[in-house]
């Protein structure tokens, strides 16, 4: 029989790296290799193109960009709003995750879905909703002025504060979901021990819960930060009127300013600048988890039992708090959206005489494309989410457990596409795939496949961070037990590791699926005839000034996603006790 041995260098203690290269395994690794290649290639193209100026290799674009005060300012602004939003969003997310998953919060399950809703509203629509609400003439401000009689609005959403506010509201679900997944696997005995030591629930959270799910918090924060940095829609809509500019808006403008020579290359350079801090953060966060050594392994295969923490008299206070969050983050914007979609024409005074459902009839039955687009989006999103999850688990495992250097580098590379504006990713993808792929001679461009590739490329980072933080929770001995029972490395992962980190896997899927459904910036550049996606349609309507229609369609999409999620939560099988 062929002797299977594992060589030094592979693996801390090596057993995990004993990856059998059998037929079955091979297929898996080829899959990883190919997909990763497909994803990394555009990033390489992007980087490469940023390094060519006036036909020569040079750092000219970087130099020029950095020499411009406006660019530096935009960069600073980007980092500022992103950081603020991340801090706020992460804090909010962690608290909410803990309340809904570890405590006897009233109606925790129901809140869970409600808290996800903001994530289901396409960001630029969400920003719009807040414009409807808090522009100088927004619903809320008008209401306020009528009620209070003041001539000045209550608050205006434009400007950095507004951007941070909205970024936070649309961002917190990411850390929320990631951290919640980790908390679902918390070993209650660890919390109980702390309470036994005399710690009150909040102390327990500060001293035990938070440190133990640090990898998840890190991942959530990182993702939120990166996506905020790269976000275009929200700062564009809320920043422009206040002349507050961030790098992505600048990059967008650069992409469009074709007159200037090499504008695409310049945009690429700007994007790399934008991606740099993200890369840095990623390294830091990896260091954090990498330190591991089972330091976050809360699922140990011993003990268990234990229930939720009883908040006692704080119970209802907590309930009110969560309700407030849901109210602000979800009910208000969705309400605005609904109102807008129900008013006959945009701008007419809100009132019964102007209410109509005709827009819904139009989007549902009047525009033939909508059905097709919905189907496309759902299928693409599902496909992308699934691919991402498979890839993420494999790569995370290889880099965190098997400690493959290659995988660790790959993990970094895969994060780039998420940390630059979608428009740039799209351009990079065109540059990479407009021509048929060498060797195999397949042409992704102008097919639905490039959208799939685009979504996977864009969102794989989400999957990776989520998966690796889930992985950190699984104590090595559980996997060892599977190996000694006769399972190969691959099988041990499938049979033991993945099921135990399932909440993280599930979340990764959701976190990718949802934004992929209403994805806009990539799709708008990459879709081809017959492959329209719902995001493209919504944006198209909006662009043509058919505000009400786009609002109606967004609302429909949100409701669809919502329904889907409720279904998922309902049908989820009874979970074992961690």
């Amino acid at each position: 029989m062929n002797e299977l041995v594992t060589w030094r260098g592979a693996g801390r203690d090596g057993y995990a790296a004993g990856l059998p290269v059998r037929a079955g395994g091979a297929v898996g690794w080829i899959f990883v290799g190919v997909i990763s290649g497909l994803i990394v290639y555009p990033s390489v193209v992007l980087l490469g193109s940023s390094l060519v100026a006036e036909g020569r290799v040079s750092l000219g674009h970087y130099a020029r960009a950095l020499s411009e005060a406006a660019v530096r300012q935009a960069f600073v602004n980007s980092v500022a709003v992103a950081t603020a939003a991340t801090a706020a969003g992460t804090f909010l997310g962690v608290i909410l995750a803990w309340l809904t998953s570890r405590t006897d919060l009233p109606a925790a399950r129901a809140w869970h879905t409600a808290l996800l809703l903001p994530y289901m509203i396409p960001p630029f629509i969400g920003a719009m909703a807040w414009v409807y609400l808090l522009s100088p003439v927004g619903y809320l401000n008008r209401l306020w002025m009528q009620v209070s009689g003041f001539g000045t609005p209550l608050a205006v959403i434009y400007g950095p504060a507004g951007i941070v506010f909205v970024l936070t509201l649309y961002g917190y679900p990411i850390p929320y979901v990631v951290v919640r997944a980790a908390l679902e696997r918390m070993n209650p005995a660890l919390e109980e021990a702390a309470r036994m030591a005399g710690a009150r629930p909040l102390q327990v959270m500060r001293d035990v819960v938070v440190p133990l799910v640090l990898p998840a918090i890190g991942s959530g924060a990182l993702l939120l930060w990166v996506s905020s940095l790269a976000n275009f829609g929200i700062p564009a809509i809320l920043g422009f009127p206040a002349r507050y500019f961030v790098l992505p808006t600048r990059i967008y403008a650069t992409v469009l300013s074709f007159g200037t020579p090499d504008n695409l290359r310049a945009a690429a350079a700007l994007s790399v600048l934008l991606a740099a801090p993200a890369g840095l953060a990623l390294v830091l966060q990896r260091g954090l988890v990498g330190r591991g050594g089972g330091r976050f392994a809360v699922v140990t295969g011993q003990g268990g039992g234990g229930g939720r923490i009883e908040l006692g008299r704080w119970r209802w206070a907590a309930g009110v708090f969560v309700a407030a969050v849901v109210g602000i983050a979800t009910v208000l914007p969705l309400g605005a959206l609904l109102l807008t979609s129900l008013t006959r024409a945009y701008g007419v005074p809100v009132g019964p005489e102007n209410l109509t459902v005709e827009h819904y009839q139009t989007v549902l039955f009047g525009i033939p494309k909508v059905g097709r687009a919905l189907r496309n989006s759902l299928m693409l999103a599902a496909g992308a989410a699934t691919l991402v999850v498979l890839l993420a688990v494999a790569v995370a495992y290889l880099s965190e457990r098997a400690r493959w250097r290659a995988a660790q580098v790959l993990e970094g590379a895969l994060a780039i596409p998420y940390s630059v504006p979608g428009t740039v990713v799209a351009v990079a993808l065109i540059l990479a795939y407009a021509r048929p792929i060498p060797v195999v001679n397949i042409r992704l461009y102008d097919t639905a496949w490039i959208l799939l590739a685009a979504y996977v490329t864009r969102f794989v980072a989400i999957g990776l961070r989520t998966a690796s933080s889930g992985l950190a929770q699984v104590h090595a001995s559980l996997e060892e037990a599977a190996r000694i029972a006769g399972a190969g490395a691959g099988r041990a992962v499938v049979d033991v590791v993945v099921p135990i980190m399932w909440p993280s896997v599930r979340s990764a899927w959701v976190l990718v699926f949802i934004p992929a459904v209403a994805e806009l910036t990539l799709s708008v550049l990459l879709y081809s005839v017959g492959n329209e996606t719902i995001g493209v349609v919504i944006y198209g309507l909006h662009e043509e000034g058919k505000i009400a229609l786009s609002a109606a369609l967004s609302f429909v999409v949100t409701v669809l996603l919502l329904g889907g999620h409720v279904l998922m939560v309902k049908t989820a099988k009874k979970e074992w006790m961690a």
Partner: protein
Amino acid sequence: PGPGGTVTLYTSESEDDVNLIVQAFNRRYPNVTVRVFRAGSGPVVARIQAEMQTGRIQADVLWFADIAFLRDLARRDLLVSYSPPSGRRVPGRYHYDGNRYHEVRLIFNVVAFNTNHVRFRPSSWWDLTLPRYRGRVGIPNPFVSGAALAHVGTFVSMREFGWAYYRKLRENETQVLRSNGDVLQKLASGEISIAQVVDFFVRAAKGRGSPVDHIWPQEGSLLVPTPVAIVKGTQNLPAAEAFVDFLYTPEAQSLFAQRSYIPVLPGIPYPAGVPEAERLKVIFPNLDHIDQWREEIRKTFSELFGVQ
């Protein structure tokens, strides 16, 4: 029999318009399938640029609101020179650069206003600078929209406007908004009262019931070119030519009129609310000036308004 096969059209025209045109086209040329890639002119341009870097433009026909880009393409000799038979009677100035790209119908930047907020019907571009509208004036951003850039470029090159006009706008705390879409939306919501925006947008919104309207400024309305062109190296020249030619047929032209655009073909009745041809004062974009001074214009503008 006529041509067959497929033509790919990259356009920034609105969904409905394209569909109508294509349907009509197919009534005449049933064997040609038209594949439409539709997006804002920005993305369309970006896509074409990216395609150019990787080799050839994947479209046969281009049709969008960014004449400067088409000039660029023409200069690189990437466009087919073609004179559509049906377009003979159209004034020559609507066939640019030796018939390389063509105007098929006219849209204008005009002064629009919110009917709830503006009591005195404006009449001139200068109304945007009136103190009574301070802080409630909006114009689209020349950094994002090619049409907007054309507007600035042309106005600063004109004696009666020049940068002075924009300084005044600045003093009036004019909001520089992203796109025409934005401008219209804020106008309709009443967030701004008066704005520079493309005419048909306003008429369409008005038709849908929004409280907006526009006037034809006495100084003239700026023509926003939205030319059509055929890409060199197209796989299906006959069909492409057929499509472009079709756009000049009375049938297509009256379709434009129905959609409240102004047809270029003489003799086609103008849409309601549009003064007839001779009373309509047109300012033509000063493209050479723009080409020459693009960077400076951008620079000055962004210094003036602090946008980018």
